[in-house]
């Protein structure tokens, strides 16, 4: 029986390698061939019902483009298109591809001459860098490990509100979830273990997430935005990573409660950014349209 499993494993591995060689994960040429000059084409995951994007980095980048008032069009990656680094989101501008959301922001700031999106004071810039690392590299991975650790943590992505429409409906969806569900869970758990957060228990992860939220809330204080009176890049980062706590429903809602009740300034901050820079939030979520913001303009 074990020999059969081993042979199956080898066969599966061989086939997947053949598939990867043939299909490849890299997108060699531009996706948008008829591109307009000085117009950003952003490739990101498809829309969801409760929030525009499940991926914090995609939400952060799109929010930043809206804050910076840069014209952009979203392209649905359909889970098949990835950057040369194998990541999503990535951007095409003036015939050039740029990877990694932080490098994209730096490049676009230079290209479009946006100089007022960072704090002027060196100390505030350093603090912004540190808190950006806290949200992006610590809090988000704690949440990622939590979803892999708890039962039904990843269930939202395959519901109708998430990306369920890509899996099919009814019997087909149940079949795919049965086959792919365990493989997916193993993939996510392995990633969380490799990153380091996966070794903690769910209680410890909740504690880590709450302490991080406490630190971010103390940094925000009474200010309307992290940058003071006007939003900066850090606000886009924080919104991208905190919005998922409110808008992805979890059965226990521990962290949703934390962000809305225990540290209400964070919940209010998320609502503030949403009202100011996402007027098309309801329409985007309802219609799952990649470019609802074009209609508003």
């Amino acid at each position, binding site marked *: 029986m074990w020999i059969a*499993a081993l042979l*199956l*494993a080898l*066969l*599966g*591995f061989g*086939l*997947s390698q*053949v*598939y990867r060689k*043939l*299909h490849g994960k890299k997108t060699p040429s531009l996706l948008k061939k008829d591109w307009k000059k000085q117009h950003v084409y952003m490739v990101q995951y498809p829309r969801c019902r409760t929030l525009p994007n499940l991926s914090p980095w995609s939400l952060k980048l799109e929010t930043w483009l809206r804050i910076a008032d840069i014209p952009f069009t979203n392209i649905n990656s359909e889970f098949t298109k990835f950057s040369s*680094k*194998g*990541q999503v989101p990535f951007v095409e501008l003036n015939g050039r591809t740029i*990877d*990694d959301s932080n*490098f994209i922001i730096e490049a676009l700031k230079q290209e479009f001459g946006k100089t007022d999106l960072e704090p002027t004071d*060196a*100390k505030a*810039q*350093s*603090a912004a*860098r*540190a*808190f950006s*690392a*806290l949200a992006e*590299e*610590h809090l988000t*991975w704690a949440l990622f490990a939590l979803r892999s650790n708890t039962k039904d943590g990843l269930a939202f992505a395959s519901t109708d509100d998430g990306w369920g429409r890509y899996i099919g409906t009814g019997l087909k969806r149940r079949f795919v979830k049965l*086959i*792919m569900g*365990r*493989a997916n869970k*193993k993939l996510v*758990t*392995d*990633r969380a*273990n*490799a*990153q*380091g957060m*996966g*070794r*903690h*228990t769910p209680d*410890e992860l909740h504690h880590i997430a709450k*302490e*991080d939220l*406490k*630190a*971010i*809330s*103390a*940094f925000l204080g009474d200010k309307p935005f992290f940058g003071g009176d006007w939003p900066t890049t850090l606000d886009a980062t924080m919104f991208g990573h905190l919005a998922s706590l409110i808008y992805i429903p979890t059965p226990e809602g521990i962290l949703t409660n934390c962000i809305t009740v225990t540290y209400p300034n964070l919940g209010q901050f998320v609502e503030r950014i949403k009202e100011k820079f996402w007027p098309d939030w309801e329409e985007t979520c309802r219609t799952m349209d990649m470019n609802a913001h074009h209609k508003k303009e």
Partner: protein
Amino acid sequence: ALSILHTLSSVLSAITCAVYREKKSKQHFPRMLLLKRDWTRNHVYLFTYPRCRRIPNISPWSLKMETWLRLARIPYTAIATFSKGKSIKSSLPFVEVNGRQMADSAIIIETLKVEFGKSLDHSLSSDEVSRCRAITALVEEQMTPCLMVLLLPDVEYLVSDEAWGPHLGRGLTGWFRRRRMERRMRRQIASSVDIRGAGRHSYAELTDLIKEALDALSTLLGDRPYFTGASSSTIDATVFGHVACLVYAPTPDGVLTDYVRITRPTIGKFIERMKETFWPDWEEACRTRNMNTHRNP
């Protein structure tokens, strides 16, 4: 044909996962058997990597842990080990204190502060506490993974005679153990950085990221002797552990070491200050490879 191949390979891999039980990390089951059976009360037994020629401990987290124990004036005995499997979270460093085993440096520090009644960080305001948490995330989750990617081509340094080589034995057995350790470290580091995204950056991008992190640290330190003012606290041990490994790391071109010592002398002087205050036995420890050259309070 490609989609059939894809479906087939994913179905086979899913069946393989169903047959092969995924490796559960040992987080939920505390070890019944301690490694140090004849333990003394209120004495910490720190299990960490062996000494190296250039730096007492080449792993940033282990150096941070040991520096913190000296800073907090907690009596400890360091024991050299490679076996992560024996720890509760399958990670190094881990400690055994008063008959209990704990892993993960952040959790150990929090628990020992309470257990030994140390008022190390009590005088910090909530603003400073949140800032320290953000600086910890900047250093541990952004700067050090970038450094690991830079050092990934030189993993064989870790098993050379300057580092852990002498502890792995001599002769033919030693050669096999060194090759196995090298393979293990390379796989571990590569998977960890690949998940974070740092593993996909180019050399120039990584060096820039590290330099920006060092700039931020230098600005946040300012002209104070320690990060929280006149007296040292946990954040100083954290920054020292990670930046000292950067300064003494065997990078071929020494770009980063020069950046710390020459371009950002504030941080360079901070490292020297911490080294002189808390590691007066640095030279002796590195030369004799003795784990316990310190004097306990």
